């Protein structure tokens, strides 16, 4: 039996992250397809956890030696135990440029191959194979490929091996496995949609004014949207590539993924207004099986207006209509419904969403709440109307996980539910607030340290997915152990040696910037103890503390300020004097 070790590089992450089962299944799938059934993962054989190696752009900028040291340290711990090593460099933040990073990695691996007999085989997984003839660093690997020391595989299933002896038999299946391992694209798309609340003015094509409460902003899920649109077109058109038309006036997020898809599949791409403008000058595009993509269809007034113009200008065959989001339709995903227009027009959509529309008696107009501009929030913090709307749509409960030094708050919104419904937008607002106050927000990844509670974990997960922050979640009993300034750290290390949070805290680079995140703050004790813990673990750069609400109003005290999404302080008489535990 051949034992296989793992060396997973987490680009753009600040702290080691546990490699989940989906990724481990993916590795096993690769082994089975490429190497056969006699290869097994070391961590599965020995029932132990595997963690990624955090690597940031600044690490790579420092040079080969920094990258090599990180890889070497992990390699040394496993090299004698494994016959084959999977080196995964495909999990990188999309903002990073792969070229220089991969260059350093290739150098590091070649150094490992040269200086070690064991393991005998390396499988390098990368996002995309570089062009063999152009990339200088691929020549570093060429010798080892020829000597059967290394196989290089990318996410499309393309493979470089000696004489192409080894390859994947079913690339389509492989791509599906990759999508599922790295996160279901459709789920990721849904998670990353920013449902911005506000008071949005709309005017229909027939001139009717009305108001809506939500603006769906998919700018954070550009990659996922690109994949979804591409897959949809391939599924519905096959090799017969259509002309892609789109329409977006306020939803500017639609344009980049559509242009990206067009380039990828070699389709022509037009804004539908460009077609109409051309028709006005007498020029007509010869469109081939056009598909018209819109960001969101609600009342269908916009699409009817477009089709009216289409008819008026005699553009040609009515396009197939795809809406990314729809408020109509029965199915939650990949549904369709008909609208009445010269018979029936079929509208297909990717995701169903809800939207609150007021044609008459808009309650926000009644309260003289100003209109919200599309595209970005007017205010860094949540408005009163939005905060209490979100709170009202969640259940109200007694506080859970209350610190021992004070009594629980009797009646508060269920923040976990509130975050579940609005997490993407809240995470984005937290990042905007940090950007505003910190000003020089580091380009390098940030670590979020949060208490291991449902709400805080949920908010932190959104920060990870939306903003790329690394998350370390600390159990409450551990946090409160750090109430003492002089707690015995060796005892902590010994007790929690194998716990995920401890491994992350111990192995994360100490120069990383940290943000403490909670769903809400009352006495500030969690913040205080976490600060003590973070400093005892050797971190010196705590940027700030963020919470949705600071009920106690203590956040502005002390060296690390609390930034909130909604200002709402309860007086001590209401919370209770938590220092003396006397309550009114």
């Amino acid at each position, binding site marked *: 039996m051949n034992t296989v070790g793992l060396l997973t590089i987490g680009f753009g992450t600040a702290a080691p992250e546990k490699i989940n089962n989906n990724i481990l299944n993916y590795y096993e799938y690769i082994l089975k397809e490429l190497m056969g059934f006699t290869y097994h993962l070391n961590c599965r054989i020995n029932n132990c956890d595997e963690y990624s190696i955090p690597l940031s752009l600044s690490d790579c900028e420092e040079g080969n030696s920094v990258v090599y040291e990180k890889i070497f340290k992990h390699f040394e711990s496993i090299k004698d135990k494994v016959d084959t090593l999977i080196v995964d460099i495909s999990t990188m933040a999309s903002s990073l440029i792969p070229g220089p990073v991969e260059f350093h990695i290739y150098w590091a691996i070649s150094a490992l191959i040269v200086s070690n007999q064991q393991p005998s085989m390396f499988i390098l997984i990368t996002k995309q194979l570089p062009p063999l003839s152009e990339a200088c660093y691929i020549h570093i690997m060429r010798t080892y490929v020829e000597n059967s020391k290394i196989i290089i595989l990318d996410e499309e299933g393309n493979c470089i091996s000696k004489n192409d002896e080894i390859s994947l038999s079913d690339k389509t299946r492989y791509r599906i496995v990759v999508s599922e391992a790295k996160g279901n694209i459709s789920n990721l798309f849904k998670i990353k949609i920013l449902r911005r609340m506000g008071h949005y003015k709309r005017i229909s094509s027939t001139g009717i004014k009305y108001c809506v409460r939500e603006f769906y902003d998919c700018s954070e899920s550009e990659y996922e949207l690109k994949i979804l649109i591409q897959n949809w077109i391939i599924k519905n058109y096959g090799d017969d590539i259509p002309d892609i038309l789109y329409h977006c006036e306020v939803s500017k997020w639609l344009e980049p993924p559509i242009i990206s898809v067009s380039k990828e599949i070699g389709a022509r791409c037009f804004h539908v207004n460009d077609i109409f403008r051309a028709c006005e000058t007498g020029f007509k595009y010869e469109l081939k099986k056009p598909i018209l993509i819109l960001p969101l269809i609600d009342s269908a007034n916009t699409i009817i207006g477009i089709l009216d113009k289409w008819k008026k200008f005699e553009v040609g065959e009515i396009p197939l209509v795809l809406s990314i989001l729809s408020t109509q339709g029965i199915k939650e995903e990949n549904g369709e419904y008909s609208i009445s227009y010269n018979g029936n027009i079929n509208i297909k959509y990717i995701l169903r969403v809800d939207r609150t529309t007021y044609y008459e008696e808009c309650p926000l107009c009644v*309260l003289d709440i100003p209109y919200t501009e599309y595209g970005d929030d*007017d205010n860094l913090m949540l408005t009163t109307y939005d905060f*209490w709307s979100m709170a009202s749509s969640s259940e*109200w409960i007694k506080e859970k996980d209350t610190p021992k030094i004070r009594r629980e708050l*009797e*009646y508060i919104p269920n923040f976990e539910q509130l975050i579940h419904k609005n997490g993407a937008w809240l995470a984005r607002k937290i990042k905007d607030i940090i950007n505003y106050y910190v000003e020089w927000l580091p380009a390098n990844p940030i670590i979020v340290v949060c208490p291991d509670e449902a709400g805080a974990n949920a908010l932190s997960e959104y920060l990870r997915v939306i903003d790329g922050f690394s998350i370390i979640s600390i159990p409450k009993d551990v946090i409160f152990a750090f109430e003492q300034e002089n707690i015995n750290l060796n005892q902590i290390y010994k007790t929690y040696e194998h716990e995920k949070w401890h491994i992350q805290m111990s192995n994360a680079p100490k120069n990383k910037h940290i943000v403490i995140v909670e769903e809400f703050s009352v006495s500030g004790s969690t913040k205080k103890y976490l600060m003590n813990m973070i400093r005892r673990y050797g971190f010196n750069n705590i940027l700030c503390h963020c919470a949705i609400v600071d009920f106690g109003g203590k956040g502005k005290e002390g060296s690390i300020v609390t930034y909130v999404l909604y200002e709402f302080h*309860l007086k001590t008489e*209401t919370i209770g004097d938590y220092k003396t535990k006397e309550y009114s």
Partner: protein
Amino acid sequence: MTIKQKNIHEDREVSCRVLIDLIRKEEDPRKRKLYLHDFLSKSLDLRETAKLYYTLEVYREIVMPEYKDVIKQYQKKTLTPRTKIDIGIITIKNFELNAAKIALGIDFKKESDHKESGYKYWIKDINTVKGKKLKTVLTMVGKPRGINISNACRTMFNIYDIKMCILIGIAAGLESKVKIADIVVPETIYDIEGMRLEGSGAKKRPIPYNMKRSLARSIEYFDLKVIEWKEAFQNNMNKIRELYKTPDLPELFEPEIHNKIILTGEKLLADGSLELLREEHHDETRAYEMEGGGFAATCDECGIPWIVFRGISDYGDPTTKDGIGGNPHLRKIWQPIAALSAATIAILYMRNEIQQEDIVLF
């Protein structure tokens, strides 16, 4: 030039209206109590007239029915919304106020348009070179120092819905780099007052306040060589001499605009130490004054873009350099001229570089 930025939070009056509506409609007394907490904490930031209006409004929702009518009798039927103003102009001393009035074309004898908490406000429209109007409001703090200008700004922001704020005044200049009646428009104001006093000496803790980049760029585009400024400048100088005995500026005088650094602190500089302060804090220091930090901090807190125009009136050394020939009785002699220089240039800047439709403050 477009001035766009986010507010930190929404207008407090909007928040209070929403909370009153929530209290009115909510049946659960526990939620009503929380809404009331929220309202009372936010109402502290309201302007006086709004505070009274909304507080009475919330009382009507929470008192027993027999008292509602009594409250209604004392409540105004409607609350006048804050007047929308494009640019708020704030000065510190009387001669600076007069200088700003001259530059804006406000008659000295004209009564103020509004008074509140002892502050007076004059409203004036400026015509821009593109034929549009900018609505401005002018006021004076009265006393120096950051805390006083902070209070004045907050009061003004409570009364008027202001999109942008300008401070016009005088400053002590760095003799090696600026001359009398030059204007310093700082891209950064360094508040140098903060420090930690230790046995081994003071540890400096300066706080920088940066002008918004878009505004700073618009100042860089503002070029006295290509705009008509001399006539306005001369006319204004003639008017200030009707009020104050001032010496003449040299015949070919041209004010220079310095987009560099201003140091600000709580102490009046009268010991000739500006050069030393420049060495200690920032090489690009051109002037020192006492209100910039409080002004910038308050504007930033309220989400209002700001610019400072400071005319150089002296060199911070009344015994040797200031005034004329170091005569201590004449140390303030250039102050009205310096203030007028700053005010004239500030108004010219507004007329040439800012268009009303471009000022978009969310």
